[in-house]
């Protein structure tokens, strides 16, 4: 088949996956938060309100899109794209099964992190261009928190890489056929969850939106589909973070006591179930916890998470090197 056609199909697949994911995740968020808060969530449109999100997408698409007077026009229109495109690109390296991956990159993990680190650029652009003080504070906060937490996040992702000996996400998932890495790398697992919550802008650390303080943060001045893109990319980031967590620590598409490739296409279902369970936990956290303060967040990042992750990387490195020496090449 034509190589360009395949590439195009893959891009379309990623786009479709992202949009579908957004729709499903928004519905899921509403339902999960609803039930957590002893209420029902959307109920009117379709059975149990399943078409509510579609209706909202339609609403966002058809809404009037006013542009505030003093915005920096170029950036204002560009910013949702700057936010949206990286979170779309990040889908590329995620292995849904051993073979189903949009682009099986040798440096998949590095690629994903590199792409995700473009996000704050879009957020600060949105905050700056909106000519709104709340947006500006929100944008600044997002840069501060994402820059400080990228290092702990990477550090926390290193132990699985060291054990698996590869930066390819498929290889890392495959390496967990014996034991899922969350158990041997428990501290790294927890650090990754915390840092990932910050990176994905999730509730105890959703500083840049911080509804009760900053109205809606960087998204305050956005309306209609521009807001939709910001919103969608946020859900997509949550999905990517959860996929990374599953791939790095929770065995990827594998099921315990089943050979790695025995499931075939069903492995993708297993993977998605795992990811959605992680997302459910994130929503559960979101429905429960208060928000930390920005200075506490940054202090925690630099003073606790970074040293802890460095120490753990050193310990893992030592263990990975010492293990074959002691037990004679089990690895």
């Amino acid at each position: 088949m034509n190589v360009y056609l395949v590439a195009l199909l893959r891009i379309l697949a990623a786009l479709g996956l992202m949009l579908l994911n957004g729709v499903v995740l928004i519905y899921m968020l509403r339902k999960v938060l609803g039930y957590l808060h002893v209420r029902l969530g959307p109920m009117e449109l379709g059975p149990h309100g399943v078409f509510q999100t579609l209706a909202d997408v339609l609403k966002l698409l058809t809404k009037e899109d006013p542009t505030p007077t003093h915005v920096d026009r170029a950036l204002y229109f560009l910013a949702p794209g700057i936010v949206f495109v990286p979170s779309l690109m990040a889908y590329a390296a995620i292995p849904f099964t051993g073979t189903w991956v949009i682009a099986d990159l040798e440096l998949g993990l590095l690629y994903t992190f590199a792409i995700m680190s473009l996000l704050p650029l879009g957020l600060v652009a949105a905050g700056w261009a909106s000519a709104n003080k709340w947006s500006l504070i929100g944008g600044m906060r997002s840069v501060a928190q994402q820059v400080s937490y990228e290092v702990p996040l990477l550090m926390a992702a290193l132990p699985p890489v060291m054990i698996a000996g590869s930066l390819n996400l498929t290889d890392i998932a495959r390496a967990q056929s014996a034991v899922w890495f969350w158990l041997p790398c428990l501290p790294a697992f927890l650090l990754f969850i915390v840092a990932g919550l910050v990176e994905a802008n999730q509730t105890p650390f959703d500083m840049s939106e911080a509804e009760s303080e900053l109205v809606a943060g960087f998204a305050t001045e956005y309306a209609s589909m521009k807001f939709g893109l910001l919103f969608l990319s946020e859900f997509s980031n949550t999905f990517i973070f959860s996929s990374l967590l599953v791939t790095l620590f929770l065995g990827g598409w594998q099921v315990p006591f089943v050979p790695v490739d025995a499931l075939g296409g069903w492995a993708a279902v297993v993977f998605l179930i795992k990811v959605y369970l992680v997302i459910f936990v994130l929503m559960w956290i979101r429905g429960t916890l208060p928000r930390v303060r920005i200075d506490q967040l940054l202090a925690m990042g630099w003073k606790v998470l970074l040293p802890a992750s460095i120490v753990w990387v050193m310990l893992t490195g030592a263990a990975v090197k010492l293990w074959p020496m002691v037990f004679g090449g089990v690895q």
Partner: protein
Amino acid sequence: MSDARDTVAHAGWLTADKPSLPDEIPLTLKRVPSGVDEVMTEHLVVNMGPQHPSTHGVLRILVELDGEEVIACESVVGYLHRGIEKLAEHRRYSAVGTLMDRGDYVSGIHNEMAFALAAEKVADIGVPRRANWLRVLMGELNRIASHLVWYGTMGLDTGAMGQFLYAVRDREDLLDILEDVTGQRMMFNYVRPGGVLNDLTPRAEKKIRAFLSTFDAYLDEHHALLGGNEIFQARTRGIGVIDKETAIAFGLTGANLRASGVSFDVRRDRPYAAYDEMDFDIPVAESGDIYARYLVRIEEMRQAARICRQCIDGLPEGEHTAKVAKVLRPPAGEAYAAVESPRGELGVHLVSDGTDRPYRMRYRPPALFGLQAAEAITPGTFLADAVAIFGSVDVVLGEIDR
């Protein structure tokens, strides 16, 4: 810009009213040196409110920010001003209760009670014992409802969401009870000079007992969910400290004053209705921070439930209202009556000139004094703290603006 007065002038505010600026920097707007002025940074003046997710109604707070730090803040109120004090001068004594309800709309029973007590003092009306007990019962149920709203919005201010819905769920039961007895859910018009409007219904009594049997467990759950949370503690312990002297100087009352270590409660120190017959504790905390105010209010809810239990078990027989003339014409005189509303000492200073309408009714809004104190202690904290501080002193704009 150099100081807080410039904040105001910068925003173009003061000039309309007063051409000249005061020379001295106000105590309430004290300036905290930032240390970055040499690099020509500019402070950000933001308007929090009147439409902002966390200003509890239509409060507007003018905040000068240095990065995330609050340099000065000034609250602007009056958006909800309806002139209750003036309107009361044109209403019969029986109709003023409807205005009082709309003052502090979260705890209407207390507002009505304050006015009814003042009117009874002026007109020298005796109240039947059952009416007093009913007032206490309804007042304490209303206090729980009001504190639950405070608890919920305090969580929202710090970013949590779940506990607000749980608090509202419990408040719903209370509003059902109040609706059953009084006829409406918030604008009760229930406590009248001379007694109360209606007696308890059997259905309401059953509901109250059912509520009280489960409330303590739910309250423990509420407390564990928010107060036990480490993040909430990190956000509130040692933040927004109002020390004893400041609290007294700014006229704080109620839970805010008691959280600063002053044990003053109108219910105990100036007993009204049937509070001298009740057995309850007054929680007092020493630290004066947000967490102390939180703990005091949680404990007050527990004590309120305890008082309700005593009321419902020992409700005396008798009339629920004294025989009062349809059109009340108290003799000329003056009276001050105060109740312990959920926000503090809610006083009504009533002047009668012998006609059927009050000559002057002064409504002492406890939340106004809380707002002043919050405004005074906020500079020097972070923006997120400012939200929590203004939430913690429990401002209700209906009461502040009247």
